[in-house]
């Protein structure tokens, strides 16, 4: 369904993503595991098309040259040069890191803004889905999003991404800054969302412990390079992963 081959991203002369190839099959949950500065966010920005916009803006203000090489294929089509907003319409949606929500709007407004492209019935279905996945949001519908806790904002951000009815959903560090209990809650909801929203999910995370048991397939990246691939169980059994991510 979604293939990436030989992807390279340069920020000026620094190589952020190095000859990375990966493949995502429909209906799967795929994990991208890497520590800080491994290139996870750059990778997801590239896959969702945001990098094209960043590239343009940097070039216009005379900032860093960003070079993107390699091909991204989605449902048999090369989408390497497709702008982010077209990709979102095609069903490739990114939920960015640090739970970006519209701080001055209420939870309900946020969900409606996210569903702008959809019709009334779809919006209603989307809101129902978000409320079912994250029951905690039910009591908060009239609350200003900017004043909620990090965990609540993260739940809302995922709910907003699901409003677009994505065929392929990228989650960038959904567990960032959450307590272990909250992490588990979010992961349970993500697992449920995979089935209920009938979608495909790619999660980039540095916390491997809650992620690995859930994913069908995992890619471990270091310094922008792919170092290991395998199913969740295989990676969990790997001694290097154990020492690097579980501290055993």
């Amino acid at each position, binding site marked *: 369904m979604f293939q990436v081959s030989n992807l*390279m991203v340069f920020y000026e002369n620094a190589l952020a993503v190095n000859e990375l190839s990966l493949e995502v099959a429909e209906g799967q949950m795929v994990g991208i595991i890497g520590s800080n500065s491994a290139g996870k966010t750059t990778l997801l920005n590239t896959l969702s098309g945001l990098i094209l916009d960043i590239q343009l803006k940097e070039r*216009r203000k005379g900032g860093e*040259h960003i070079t993107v*090489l390699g091909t991204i294929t989605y449902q048999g089509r090369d989408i390497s040069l497709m702008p982010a907003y077209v990709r979102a319409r095609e069903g490739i949606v990114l939920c960015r890191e640090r739970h970006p929500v519209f701080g001055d709007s209420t939870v309900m407004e946020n969900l409606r803004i996210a569903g702008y492209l959809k019709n009334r019935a779809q919006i209603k279905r989307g809101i129902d889905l978000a409320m079912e996945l994250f029951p905690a949001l039910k009591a908060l519908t009239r609350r200003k999003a900017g004043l909620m806790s990090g965990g609540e904002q993260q739940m809302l951000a995922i709910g907003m991404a699901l409003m677009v009815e994505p065929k392929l959903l990228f989650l960038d560090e959904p567990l960032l800054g959450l307590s272990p209990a909250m992490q588990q809650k979010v992961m349970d909801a993500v697992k449920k969302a995979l089935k209920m929203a009938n979608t495909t999910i790619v999660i980039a995370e540095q916390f491997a412990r809650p992620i690995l048991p859930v994913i069908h397939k995992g890619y471990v990246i270091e310094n922008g390079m792919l170092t290991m691939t395998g199913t969740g169980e295989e990676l969990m059994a790997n001694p290097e992963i154990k020492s690097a991510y579980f501290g055993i």
Partner: protein
Amino acid sequence: MARRLERLDRGIKVRSDDVFALNSWREMLYIIAPRVLPVLLLLVLGLAATPYWQRVIMQACMIGLLAISWDLLASVGMVSLGQALFFGIGAYIAGILDHYAGLGPWLTIPIATVGGAALSTLLLLPVLRLRGIYFSMVTLIMPLMIERIIEATKIFGGTEGLSGLQPMPHALVEIIAAMAVVWVALFSFNRMMSSDYGLILKGINDNDRAVMSAGLNIYLYKAQALFLAAGVGAFAGAFVTHAYQFVGMPVFALDYSILPIAGAAVGGMGTMSGPLLGCFILVPLNELLRGLGGMRTVIYAVLLVVFTVGLPEGIFHFIKRKYTQFERWVEVEQ
């Protein structure tokens, strides 16, 4: 084979950043030339020009000072839309001291610089706590308000203004003094911004809460920056007052607020040199177009749009990048 554009520092730049610069005339020249050449060029232009164009250069210097002051404020996170406030207060203090007390330019200009800075800082002190657009709105409205107060109360000559003030000793003194002050302001502020003190100022723009967490009173620093910037603006006002031997309500006009910002947009913000360069392009250009009559504003505006759309980083940043870095295409191994 895939290619990408690589951008690297020039060898001479890397060498002259280091102590090696002292070993070779070429490296020393590389550092000194971009600082000395503009000074010399302006000096020659200023001395060779006709009296009319000398006035234009003086005007450009004064607008340039306002632009430097604007850039200093902007790099502390205070975007001022009212440079005319500083300019006008300085102009009126100098005019009043000369008209009523008969002090000459050698006394009025220093007093107006310090007094104008203090008065402007006091006036804006209550809005220092406002961030972003609110500070801009207040600064935009203040000069216009003072202009109306003078019109309504008829103080200091009212709409007539104060005329017949003492002139500068000599046209040559005037032009040289104008240039000297511009260069002193530019180089000393640039030096200041790269010191530890400047680091705090830049930090306030970047993340004021982090500066507060470091135990620094950001309002004190903001007030100091405002005092410095207002002083530069007030000097420009006082200087122009004596050059034209007149002060009146037009010193609070919107032009003095807009031109420095236009200069900053054309020249490139954040370096002080950029806005100054922008003013040295825009002010003479404005005079050149004077022969065109009504079309002047149209052409001027179109040029402004072309500059800001075509080179959003600003001319100065563009030149600086070309001077310190080079670009080449390299093949990427895949």
